[in-house]
């Protein structure tokens, strides 16, 4: 492997932080979906 320059390392770290942040968004999206499904199930229970 090559010895990277400081800016190359920084660029990779920035990109990694950005992708890691996107994974938090996945968690939020899944959370949103879970809330929607839970509400639907509760509404169904109330309706029956």
């Amino acid at each position, binding site marked *: 492997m090559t010895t990277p320059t400081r800016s190359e390392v920084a660029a990779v*770290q920035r990109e*990694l932080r950005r992708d890691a942040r996107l994974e938090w968004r*996945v968690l939020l999206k899944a959370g949103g*979906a879970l809330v929607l499904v839970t509400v639907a199930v509760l509404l169904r229970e109330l309706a*029956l």
Partner: protein
Amino acid sequence: MTTALVTLLVVFVLVGTVPVWATALQYAVLPFHAVINHYGKAGYACPRVAVIVPAWNEALVLGAAIDRLLRLDYPPDRLRIYVVDDASTDATPEVVRALALAHPGRVVHLRRDRGGEGKAHTLNHGISIVLAEPWAEAILIMDADVIFAADSLRKMTRHFADPKVGAVTAYIAEGSADRNAITRFIGIEYVMAQLGSRRAQNVLGAIACLAGGAQLHTRANLEAIGGRIPTGTLAEDTMATFESQLRGRRMVFEPHALVLAEEPRTIRALWKQRLRWARGNVQVTKHYRQLWFRPSRTHRLGGIAFGLIWFSVLLLPVMMVLAAVGLVGLMWLHSSLAAFVFSLMWIAAAVVYVYSMLVAVQLDPRTGLRSWREAILFPGIGSLILMAVAISPPLVELVWAQLGVVVEGSTELALLVAMYVWGPVAMLGAWLARVVEPVPVLGWLLSRVLLYVVGYGSLLCAITVDAYVQEWRRADMTWSKTEKVGRVLG
């Protein structure tokens, strides 16, 4: 005696719900990828990468794929492309020779005089040449038709900053420019199976398969598994993934590295491709029979969660048949219990389907938007009706009343049986869709209607049944590649 039989039949139905719980498990684990991922250990890594492109009559697609490789956001002096021409009889040699001339030292043409032995053999020809020299530090195995996004390789290599990582795979998305129902279904399937399930597998620490279209190995990993891709099964990529993990190396799925692939456009072509994959999975299951459900300190392939995920796919048809047998049996012995477990089964299926699909379409919103019909109809119209029946029985009665249909006596019995055996019936419907597809005029329309009615999952299930039969008959393992004509968006 009756109690024992009823208990057994209830167990049958519960076994039929295993795939639902396996999906629920994966989509419950998936959000934890926010905290359990490899980004903390990844960093700058820019190894010298030898790309191995197996090519057997790929003249139509090869040029675009190599062109995109040459334009990757990766240092040109650290990337070499080895095209292994598997005794092609079309213009592949000319295409590769022209590229090798235009990019001396960056594109290398390797020609096999005897071809048609399969992808693994073709790859091994290239790998042996690459590993004979010390230049390559990593080896990227790909398909001749796939298009790598500019930043994809860079995003994959950064995981090699952690020496425990042996290989990395990318998100292979359906990328045809002119999509049809089949490719849209595949698009949704890939979102669910890769962006969803493989993220979950990252969390669980065991990867089922590094996609053969984008498999980046470290040199050390490839040498550790014998310096070659295993050739004993039709699922060479899955075997390479298993062999790597059995040696204690970590596999990573990188969801932000995008690779576009051209996928089959007809049920018949899809059947051919997936039959190969499904037979490969049956062979892998048999080959590693000592591995399943036996936790180990070196790898997580023997974990209960991973076993559940693996067998819920492999044994899905068996589970569907068991559920149908259980429900029909209960109908005769204990009809109210049959109705109860039926509702339980389909309500669980509905909840898990809605949750997983809502998550999946958000993971790749572009695919979700252009394939929204296939996302909704993924389980099939038949299964959606059963979900509605289970969720709201009064709604169904209302529909019958509105239609002026009186459902009682033998009609009611027939309807009940039809609902209880829907799983196996849907598989038959999928098989029928394949049979009628080539029939002139109406065949195409009928096959598409059938597909939307029985659902994409039933089609894959029917293919798995075919794989069981082919394996049982020890059918010929001749490699039959999927025809690609260069429809991927550039």
